[in-house]
């Protein structure tokens, strides 16, 4: 049975436009093009400056050259010789991977329930999901901190309570996220109900229908969610700042802060930029590889990302 699910009309429209070949441009269009080129330059310059700074010797740090008088490649090895970078990378990878797994699993199950099952109280609960989307995170920040400082961890990661373990940064991911549940629900409602009916007649369980019928047809939305969760967890600052105290549990974002006062109370800019570039790289690579999903994700969720 051929199933055509209308997935990303906008994304396709966007892609088609750019396929158009060069044509004669009006003066207005040429001006617009020049403006876009200028703006793109401004958007990209910070990256070049970062690269340039990361390769400068301390003595050249405050000159205005783009290409340093001497390329100080040792900045990269020096920057990573302080602190427990290997450990911090591993920590960040673990937290990110678990959070991604938890988010995908929970949001897809919950969205499946809201989109494709009928049960009493469903619509009421769904409006509650929508309401939490508008709830400012700050309201729950302090009571959650208090909660995690009381919940017993039974010595997990050497801690008596959840604070100073990865638990506060990973476990909540397994309880879903309102934005993503909403996105997936919209998406799953577009899949013909007849598919589920047919599978039910064949004796398939809901878990089976969720996993082998609905999930594969929801891939673009799941990809967007995976990518956003990756990015937000990798770059999260306030979470690790609140919950991780021991240095061996730090994430990369917390690790970067060790350079903040490294140069006699001022930031060691060349090391900071070298380390920052390396920390940023995975996200940039993921972006370049899965650009399409990022862009579709933004348009699908209406989330500006920041």
């Amino acid at each position, binding site marked *: 049975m051929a199933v055509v699910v209308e997935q990303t009309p906008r994304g396709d429209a966007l892609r088609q436009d750019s396929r*158009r070949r060069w044509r004669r441009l009006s003066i207005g269009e040429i001006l617009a093009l020049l403006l876009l080129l200028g703006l793109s330059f401004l958007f990209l310059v910070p990256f070049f400056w970062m690269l340039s700074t990361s390769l400068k010797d301390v003595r050249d740090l405050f000159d205005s050259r783009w290409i340093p008088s001497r390329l100080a490649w040792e900045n990269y090895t020096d920057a990573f010789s302080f602190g427990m970078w290997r450990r911090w990378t591993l920590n960040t990878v673990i937290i990110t991977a678990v959070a991604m797994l938890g988010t995908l699993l*929970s949001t897809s199950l919950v969205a499946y329930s809201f989109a494709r099952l009928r049960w*009493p*109280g469903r619509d009421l609960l769904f409006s509650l999901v929508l309401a939490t989307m508008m709830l400012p995170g700050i309201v729950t920040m302090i009571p959650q901190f208090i909660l995690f400082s009381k919940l017993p961890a039974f010595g997990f990661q050497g801690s008596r309570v959840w604070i100073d373990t990865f638990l506060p940064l990973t476990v909540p991911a397994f309880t879903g996220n309102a934005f993503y549940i909403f996105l997936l629900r919209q998406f799953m409602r577009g899949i013909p109900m007849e598919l589920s009916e047919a599978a039910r007649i064949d004796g398939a369980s809901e878990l089976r229908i*969720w996993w082998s019928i609905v999930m594969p047809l929801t891939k673009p939305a799941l990809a967007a969610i995976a990518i956003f969760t990756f990015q937000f967890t990798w770059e999260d600052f306030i979470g690790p700042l609140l919950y991780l105290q021991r240095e061996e549990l730090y994430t990369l974002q917390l690790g970067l802060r060790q350079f903040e006062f490294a140069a006699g109370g001022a930031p060691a800019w060349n090391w900071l930029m070298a380390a920052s570039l390396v920390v940023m790289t995975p996200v940039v690579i993921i972006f370049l590889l899965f650009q399409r999903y*990022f862009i579709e994700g*933004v348009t699908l969720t209406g*989330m*500006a990302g920041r």
Partner: protein
Amino acid sequence: MAQAIQRQGVATRRSFWRPATREAVTGWLFALPWIIGFIVFTLGPMVFSLYTSFTSYNITTSPVWVGTENYQAIFNDPRFYISLRNTFWMVAVKIPVVVVASIAIALLLNMDLPGARTFRAIFYLPNVLAGVAAIFLWRWILAADGLFNRGLALLGIPGPAWFYDPAWTKPGIVVMGMWWIGGNILIYLASLKAIPAQLYEAAAIDGATGWSKTRYITLPMLSPTIFFQVVTGIIGAFQIFTTAYIISGQNGEDVGKGGPGQSLLFYVLYLYNRAFGKSGPGGFQMGYASAMAWILFVIILAITLLQLWLARRWVYYESEQQ
């Protein structure tokens, strides 16, 4: 009898319950992760936080009921008003600047020019870099003799000391914020693409020119998107934290800290300082901080409702007119 047994047999093999009941039970089970999360990580904490806001509490000892003391103290706290003013400044300046700039760029991208896809990717690229690294980068770019001021100098403009001058710290954050409008651009671009071409064709027949098309077709058709972006943008701007935390170069120690002349003491930064500040007067005041959180919640709620009310005057919903 035999039939009844047989039917029961089928039912047992299929499921213990009737199909509708089974579906209801499955529905609840599938939704359970969210329900548990909502109770444990949202509703419970909110109730507890409301209670805490009427107590004196430092986590290590039990909360002591103090009535409305925290709220009274907050309304007599000069830093509360400073943080509120700083935050309102950000909302009032940053949101309009972001809306205008991102719509302008979206309009340019919507012109079907060669390379539109590449431009789109370039404008979005900074959005994937939201962490500490990017904020440090901008602290470096906006240094007194940093890249930005050197660029201004080329144009003959003397640049300010940005994050060292109380008058320029917040404009500095707005400038760096412009690097992250790529997501907004994409959203406006998608809305622009969704405007039916017939509208423009019909207007052209009626003799509409470029500006009047923008004014009477593009902007009204874009207004629901603008509305959504403004509402979520304001909620976000009220909660600015990481940027201020990193830019003001603080160590989470001194409660009163918040950049030069407290010009970066934003609401959530001050709230964080009150809750987790390690030295100075008034750290670890969970009751005080919870009360602050609730005040902010009420402010955000009031502003959102006000916007919903105002929306009727300027947001155009196509379906209503038909």
